[in-house]
């Protein structure tokens, strides 16, 4: 990610950038709703409320995710999860859901605008990820349905793999997103990369 003289590197407009060829594909995955659930992992009333509200089972194992219909639950910590949906109306009214979670001994925070997600795909996706993060992105060790929290460059980042492909989704805090996008583009430029139009987070 050293400084490039190519000023088009970092553009968000769809198109081809960097070296000839296109071994990396970058895009934003838009998040419409993201709710942070907190509470005891052992609390069955809370789990039942989450199931009722979002239609997803909270994953218990560290660094794993679970899928519901149009919703992903990502493990954030021993008592913290992130429910992400591409649909703005996926979970219904926030205040009602929050009150229900509170009554069940848990908590619910609306963080829909807090994170920006980017998808890194293509044959050299792992190299782009490795350029900014010390995690091992080998699909045999970081497989489908898993998530990890680390850094990309110096920015705290969450990595999520939906399927066993080289593709990986990285979520960063909104205020850092511009920096992270530029870092991803700079890391991808030597391989040649294509920016794709934004897609819905899945």
């Amino acid at each position, binding site marked *: 990610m050293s*400084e490039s003289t190519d000023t088009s590197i970092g553009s968000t407009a769809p198109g081809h950038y960097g070296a000839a060829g296109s071994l990396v594909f970058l895009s934003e995955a838009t998040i419409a709703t993201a709710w942070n659930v907190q509470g005891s992992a052992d609390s069955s009333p809370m789990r039942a409320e989450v199931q009722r509200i979002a239609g997803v089972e909270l994953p218990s194992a560290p660094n794993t995710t679970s899928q519901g219909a149009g919703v992903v639950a990502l493990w954030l910590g021993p008592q913290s999860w992130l429910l992400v949906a591409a649909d703005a109306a996926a979970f219904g009214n926030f205040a009602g859901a929050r*009150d229900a979670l*509170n009554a069940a001994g848990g908590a619910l925070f*609306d963080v829909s605008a807090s994170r920006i997600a980017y998808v890194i795909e293509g044959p050299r996706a792992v190299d782009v990820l490795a*350029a900014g993060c010390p995690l091992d992105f080998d699909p045999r060790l970081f497989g489908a349905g898993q998530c990890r929290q680390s850094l990309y460059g110096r920015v705290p980042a969450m990595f999520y793999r939906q399927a066993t492909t080289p593709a990986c989704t990285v979520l960063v805090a*909104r205020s850092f997103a511009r920096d*992270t996008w530029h870092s991803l583009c700079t890391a991808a430029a030597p391989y040649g990369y294509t920016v794709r139009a934004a897609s819905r987070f899945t």
Partner: protein
Amino acid sequence: MRAGTVVLASGALERGIAYDGNDRPGTMLAGAAQAYVTRYGVKPGTRATIFANNDSGYEAAVRLHEAGIAIAAIADPRPEAALSGDHPQRARAAGVTILPGSAIVRAHGGLRVTGIDLASLAGGATRRIDCDLVCVSGGWNPAVHLYSQSRGKLRYDDALATFVPDASPQSIVAAGAANGKIDLSAVLADGHDAGLATAARLGFAARTPLSAPATAAVPTGPLQALWSVPSRHGAKCFVDWQNDVTVADIALAAREGYRSVEHLKRYTTLGMGTDQGKTANIVGLALLAAELGVSIPRVGTTTFRPPYTPVTMGALAGHEVGANVEPTRHSDMHDWHIEHGARMLNAGLWKRPHSYPRPGESEDEAANREAKNVRSNVGAVDVSTLGKIELQGRDVAEFLNRVYINRWDTLGVGRCRYGVMLRDDGMVFDDGTTSRLAESHYLMTTTTLNAVNVMQHLEYLLQVEWPELEVFATSVTEQWAAAALAGPKARQVLSELVSIDVSNAAFPFLAVGECELVAGGARIPARLFRMSYSGELAYEIHVPATHGRAMWQAVLAAGEAFGIMPYGTEAMSTLRIEKGHVVVGPEADGRTTADDLGMGKLVSPTKWCIGKPLLARPALTAPERWQLVGLTAIDGTIPRGGKLVADPGQATPIPMLGHISSWCWSPNVDGSIGLALLERGRARHGETLWAVSPLADARVKVRVGPPCFIDPEGERLRV
């Protein structure tokens, strides 16, 4: 990268032999001389003597001979019977003089070696041979540094007279010369085998037989360990050329009682520096073993330190150079600020507008215009960077009671309150507001710079100190874009924007509510707070950050008819200095208590909180403590970073009574004002002191007063 197994094929390093005069230029390792000839096509001398206790010196001799360098002789301590290997025989066939059972006992020459004295190892007469190159080989040491740094254990190999890899707690395999294989055919075979075995163990079977370079084994005679040849003249025999450590130095270390090899290293500097003993260490510890009368394995090796070889700063810095040294945080209004001429400054990792200079206007003039406009009309400032933490759970009020100095169990839904947090030692840690959004849902704001620290503080308390409290916290700094709308016309602007009644009766000072904000036909869900940092009638509007720019533009559009101006951090700072509002850093500098800052009455007498027990320490209640005051320059400008003294004309050292913590030109007071921490400050209101700065060569007469220059009764923010 995480490796399942590491194969180390790091090679071997040749070692020297210590003898009298072995530091003369023209002395080098046999392998080095061979590399000059075969790799670089350079003749390192014209007439060489070889001194070797193993066959590899003979290979070098043959190569040098073939390159046209005269070989004066090969001195070898080994007996004739040991010289049956291929390389000695080739040397003999080439007509090179071989002198078994002999050694160099002295080298002659100053700026260049001119000759050497040879003698039998058994002693006796010397024989002088003229030469300008001496090539030495004392054997080979596997480069075990990386192996050892990864906690691999070593074993002493008598045949090689050196340490070789033995066992590693990690999945690390040494191969080739690094594994003690010296002959090329063995090196190639060992590397090939190690690669295949490792791949197989990791589940990568070779699909077809791999062809690898191979060569016939070269019959080799045994090495005979020889570390040093005693000088017959008491002269220096070097062991470590980089650190000038001699055989005598090692003997002295042993006599002085430095029996551990680690102590030997520190006493003599053997094996230190960039070379880290690559050539010298085995020789040095073998000599120590001889001095101590113990075996070499018992002496052991020193710790191998990384890096193996000097590493460039660039390799360590990696990508983190230039703009990548630190990430930058942008608010959702960032681009608007740039488009409207804002001069940006760094606030932690954030970029914030300092001011919005108009054409022909300086930054200071712009900030003064903006600050004046807030008090006369209305202004808007981007406060998205403030730390925001949401709290939920049954015990939030109790938790807040414990972390803030003031009471929180009396805060109703739809209300907010200013709070101060202390460190354990009683000093002010952070300040901000907390709002009660719903029955058990609160929003805490922190200073921009302390956002992460406060979040860590709260998480620590909840996880370690009070896990029994049912409180859940999450940072929502990134979730909400925020603007403060301040000035006497703020309500008029706001009422054009929001769906709720914002009259003083319906939405009084410190009210909090949810509403919708109309922005260009769209309706944005918003949180509205009636709080004031400027001391004016003011509101904070928070919207989901995706709507940040739309909200900001809607606020400015609605305010246009009322003379609204965006204002930056400089005007914000001027406004807060005019009101005497303290800031973490300048006033809350880690040495001030709430009482020092004029907020002693906020400390609730009826409850415990973090830091409160230690507030009773005598030093924290002493009357001579420095207290917050306001300063007005009588003439001149209060100097940046100035000190307060009673009389600058006194003989030095002049007692310092306090220091200026914040200062500005106030367009609303129309004068130079400041905040200061002053000894017995509250008792000095009305006094005249001097603000001095020896650095700026400034002396300015100032009047001490209360730390508030505008609306001391606080009426403007309640209208």
